[in-house]
């Protein structure tokens, strides 16, 4: 197929023939095995939405157990079958499987693949001015590895022994021994295979993102003129490429322990009436390997969301993002530090306490760039002219969650305080707000903001706003009360707390949390309706619906393969010239040269006009920021 051969470096060929080839190809090459980054992005998005729904449903099921422990769940039998016990309760082992799969699905399949996969793919070429990704074929492979991984993970839900049930962190020996929990049988095998494929997908994607950002920026798009979204995707991809292989090795060693009798993580185990021969392994080693990915993973999930919201908040505040350089710097700092804080998940695992001190220090350092980001967001809102588009609402929600959830990290990162809080609901509240909800809101903001570019139509404004308010309030009602439950010491992953006098309270808060979770879940159907309805029946989108500066809005309403008809625009300015004094409009897109805007140019920008005349890429650093 001809379009497949189009490579961004052969631009002349591209410009001439691109549109001749536009409608060639059949259903399979256009929508299924497609190498166009926009189609791949949509594939990631739709798959991500499917997983998000499933992951959300799983959480509602276990919230039913936690919030309404006396309820008869017999009515779930048609769906869950034997996992409902004779007296209408959820099986205790299945409860753990639900928790495990909810975590796995949300962290990896929704907030990693669904978020990075969608927006890195969609926005990197469009915002840096490239025809497509560096390797369209690798990009396609990335999706199909993810798809295969999804199929395997999904299949594991239907096993008679249940899917993996040892927690999403799959700590051995629990995850290594089928005698210990039935989910560690075939369910765990499929989990490991699915994750291995997932890592392959993630690496293929990540290498592509990095290469594309470094090599394929359009004329004038220096690093200092890149939108913060691209910076965020760039750092995310680097973190992923460096840390996912470590999870791969952990998974591989666990596969060896499970199937080939090695003892990397197993030692001195007596289970099921027999002493196992394994000796010399260390379960703590697995935790080190797991969290060496696991912690950067938090930022893999969060940074893209922060990037998206930076762009959306600047656009809808009609103001430059405050402290562009500080934003990039703090992301860089976070990306580096994310590799040296992993053991703060392990303060009380028996790890050497000296390591605990080091990781406390490093962990609390990472709070500084995070705080800087929040201040910058708030300062961007200050003296803006804020339009509450659904995307903007979700971005505001993100900042609020990032603050509320992030600030409790100061307790958890402090090893002495963490002793009591570790593995309680306080931790659940913390990471669901700062990583789960904030990233989810970033993803939603991204969908609302870039939907017009993806599908050429607008999503319904009012439904989007309604969706925001129910979800925003719902999420706070779900996770805020968990702080109290956590301070009271309630351990996480408990099927019920009634065995303990100490934890035999808070039935009221738990019921509130569950009710709010159900409400929030139901509200997502507003989004689903809006999303699918608007794909087909939404109002046709104008070329630049949000009056935004970035390059993607210079493409046709439904950009074809190759994105731009004719030449790719040259970039002359940073992406945040909103409400510049002197200019008629309150935005000046990146491709407008300074020579066309003498009325609004700052003194040093006038000097840049000479360079523009030479039709040269502006390599001179823009001194303004």
């Amino acid at each position, binding site marked *: 197929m001809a379009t497949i051969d189009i490579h961004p470096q052969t631009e002349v060929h591209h410009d001439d023939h691109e549109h001749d080839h536009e409608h060639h190809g059949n259903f399979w090459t256009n929508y299924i095995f497609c190498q166009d980054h926009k189609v791949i992005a949509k594939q990631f998005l739709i798959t991500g939405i499917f997983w998000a729904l499933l992951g959300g449903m799983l959480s509602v099921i276990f919230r039913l157990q936690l919030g309404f422990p006396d309820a008869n769940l017999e009515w779930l039998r048609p769906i869950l079958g034997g996992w409902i016990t004779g007296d209408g309760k959820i099986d205790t082992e299945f409860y753990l499987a639900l928790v495990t799969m909810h975590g796995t699905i949300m962290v990896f399949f929704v907030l990693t693949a669904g978020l990075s996969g969608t927006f890195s793919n969609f926005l990197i070429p469009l915002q840096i001015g490239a025809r497509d990704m560096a390797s369209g074929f690798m990009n396609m492979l990335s999706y199909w590895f993810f798809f295969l991984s999804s199929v395997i993970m999904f299949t594991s839900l239907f096993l008679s022994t249940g899917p993996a049930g040892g927690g999403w962190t799959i700590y051995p020996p*629990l995850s290594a021994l089928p005698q210990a929990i039935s989910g560690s049988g075939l369910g765990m095998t499929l989990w490991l295979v699915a994750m291995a494929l997932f890592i392959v997908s993630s690496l293929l994607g990540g290498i592509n993102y990095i290469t594309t950002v470094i090599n394929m920026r359009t004329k004038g798009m220096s690093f200092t003129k890149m939108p913060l979204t691209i910076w965020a995707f760039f750092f995310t991809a680097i973190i992923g490429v460096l840390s996912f292989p470590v999870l791969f090795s952990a998974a591989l060693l666990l596969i060896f322990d499970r199937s080939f009798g090695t003892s990397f993580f197993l030692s001195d185990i007596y289970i099921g009436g027999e002493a196992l021969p394994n000796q010399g392994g*260390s379960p703590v080693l697995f935790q080190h390997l797991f969290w060496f990915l696991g912690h950067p993973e938090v930022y893999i999930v969060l940074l893209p969301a922060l990037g998206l919201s930076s762009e959306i908040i600047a656009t809808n505040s009609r103001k430059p993002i405050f402290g562009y350089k500080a934003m990039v710097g703090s992301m860089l700092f976070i990306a580096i530090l994310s590799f040296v804080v992993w053991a703060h998940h392990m303060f009380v695992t028996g790890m050497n306490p000296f390591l605990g001190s080091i990781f406390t220090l490093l962990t609390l350092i990472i709070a500084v760039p995070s705080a800087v980001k929040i201040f910058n967001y708030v300062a961007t809102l200050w003296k*803006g002219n804020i339009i509450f588009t659904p995307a903007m609402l979700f971005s505001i929600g993100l900042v609020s969650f990032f603050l509320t959830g992030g600030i409790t990290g100061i307790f958890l990162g402090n090893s002495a305080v963490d002793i009591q809080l570790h593995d309680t609901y306080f931790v659940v509240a913390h990471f669901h707000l700062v990583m789960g909800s904030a990233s989810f809101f970033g993803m939603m903001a991204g969908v609302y903001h870039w939907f017009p570019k993806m599908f050429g139509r607008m999503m319904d404004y009012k439904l989007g706003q309604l969706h925001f308010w129910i979800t925003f309030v719902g999420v706070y009602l779900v996770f805020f009360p968990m702080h109290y439950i956590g301070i009271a*010491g309630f351990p996480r992953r408990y099927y019920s707390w009634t065995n303990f006098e*100490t934890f035999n309270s808070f039935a009221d808060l738990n019921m509130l949390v569950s009710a709010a979770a159900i409400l929030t879940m139901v509200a997502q159907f507003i989004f689903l309706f809006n999303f699918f309805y608007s794909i087909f029946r939404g109002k046709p989108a104008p070329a630049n619906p949000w009056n935004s500066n970035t390059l993607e809005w210079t493409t046709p309403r439904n950009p074809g393969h190759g994105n731009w008809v004719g030449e790719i625009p040259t970039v002359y300015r940073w992406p945040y010239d909103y409400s510049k004094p002197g200019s008629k409009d309150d935005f000046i897109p990146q491709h407008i040269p300074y020579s066309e805007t003498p009325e609004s140019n700052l003194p040093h920008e006038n000097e840049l006009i000479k360079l523009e005349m030479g039709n040269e890429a502006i390599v001179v650093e823009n001194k303004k920021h």
Partner: protein
Amino acid sequence: MMSLIIGLGLVLVLGILYMIFRISNLVGLVKNEEEDIESGNNIHGYLFMAFIILGLGLFFWYSFTHFKSYTLPVASEHGVVTDNLFWVSMVVIVVAFVIISLAMFWFIFKYRYNKNRRAEYIADNHVLEIVWTVIPAIVLALLIFSGLRAWNDITGPASKEAEVVELVGQQWYWTVRYPGVKDNQLGHHNYKLIDASNEFGLDLTDKNSFDDFKASELHFPKGKEILLKIRAKDVLHSVFLPHFRVKMDAVPGMQTTFKFIATKTTDEMREETGNSKFNYEMACTEICGKGHFSMRFLVVVDEPEAYEKWKVSQETWLKLNPDYMKYVPDGLKEAAMINSGMDNISNTATQATATTVSIAN
């Protein structure tokens, strides 16, 4: 039949919602969009203000009125320190949280869209940026250093006189071993020696194991340093003593430890909480399988004298499992008889027979 009606009702409701959506869409086409955005914007501005004021109000109201229900009384020395750290951090954090939240939502409200106004072109401000980088850094440094000092004290080596207790986690219960009153040393163990009776995998060739005893409740002396030696037999578990602010994983193949000093006896705690049935408990906080939520173990804190008395009253493991005498090397058999208290067995047995006889008479 009932579910059919519910199903039909649901379809009907969804249908109505869809019609409302279509109609409002059509109405929207007629309306002036610019005005719409501005009036809609006002609504959201006010909603945000209402949200933050109500939210913060609810937060403070619940935090103060329900303080007792979500804070656990503390019963250990280091627990007082970490609780203090927690609450000091809490004050710092709540102050920061309230200021930032109020500022953010106020800006969102105040600077909501107005078509007659224009945003200000403010790209950065180095002074401001340095200030808000340095201030959190200083505050965090203070929190870190007070935290690390506490952490070093808590994780430092235990004193030689510490009262040692061994906790063993397994699916899904705890077993507890005390080093005994004769030698006060835990005997060696080996997981390959574990069987149905020998739960600890006690190595009976080690003479320290003779007087070790298994306890069905965890007893701690008040005011004396306690060193927990923790291990697991099958999968990871985690010792959690919520009132003592103690938590440490139990790891198969690796011994972990935690030292602390209990400061309140069970009776004192019953008085303090006004709950005559109050009990200290131990729980598991590391996912370990289907019984994870049921690994409760009763904990009792005694006055030191009562604790010593309780210890003496416990039967040694070997005495309760005399069959295992066969594993004791010949040279140590006598020591085993003495240290395990088994040399009394015949005496007690005779006495018991005598009593029975006298009752019969």
